[in-house]
């Protein structure tokens, strides 16, 4: 991947436990391709795994029974958005559990958003300079 070109890759999986693994697999491929060290690839895998796990565990009904994972990469960072088509949620200190805590420790930035079409969205960012 040439450093200057931005690109995006999208993955849709059924919102089911046994497919979370496929999304993790994909994530390690994309992250390794971008040249992250194996430690960081693993961190990114964990964060993505937590986000997808939450989508499977906490979304009971949604507009679609799937999870959309969008990877956006440029020379600065890898951003991964996980859309769950569910009711959405917000982060406040009180309800944060192990999942969101691990996402935060594994990534440089974690944001939660929500919109009517794609439902809850967790955005995970890792900078490529290792900062």
């Amino acid at each position, binding site marked *: 991947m040439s450093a200057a070109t931005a690109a995006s890759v999208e993955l849709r999986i059924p919102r089911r*436990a*046994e497919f*979370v*693994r496929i999304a*993790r697999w994909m994530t390690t491929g994309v992250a390794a391709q971008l040249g992250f060290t194996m*430690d960081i690839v*693993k961190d990114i*895998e*964990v964060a993505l*795994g*937590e986000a997808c*796990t939450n989508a*499977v*565990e906490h979304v009971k009904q949604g507009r679609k029974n799937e999870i959309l994972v969008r990877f956006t990469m440029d020379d600065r960072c890898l951003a991964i958005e996980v859309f769950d088509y569910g009711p959405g949620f917000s982060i406040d200190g009180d309800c944060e*559990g*192990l*999942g969101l*805590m*691990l996402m935060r*420790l*594994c990534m440089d930035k974690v944001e939660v958003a929500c919109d009517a079409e794609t439902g809850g969205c967790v955005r995970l960012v890792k900078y490529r300079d290792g900062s």
Partner: protein
Amino acid sequence: MESPLKIESRMEGGNVGVLSLAGEIDIATKDRVREAAEGLIAEGARNLLVDLAGVEYMDSSGLGVLKGLRSHLVESGGQVGIVSPRTFIKKLFERAGLDQVFPMYEELGAALEEVGK
């Protein structure tokens, strides 16, 4: 199908249950870990040793199961010991603030000696 998680379970010395895991512990496989552990507890295990030498991936799903088992065993004076975790898994326990909660052992022999006492 090559399963993402292999589980071997056995009793040692009457009241120690040993669970050897290899592969990936995640939302899809965590229930099998819990069930195998519960099987050992039903057989009389008061302590569990979970050998993670072959585990390449684990996340909060796995930690949640281990925490649940530990709460249960601690009530009757038992413990859940973690054996041979890879660097990645050690870091996971630390990040979750659980590295002081679960006893950790470098290898199974030492763990059995300590726990079997």
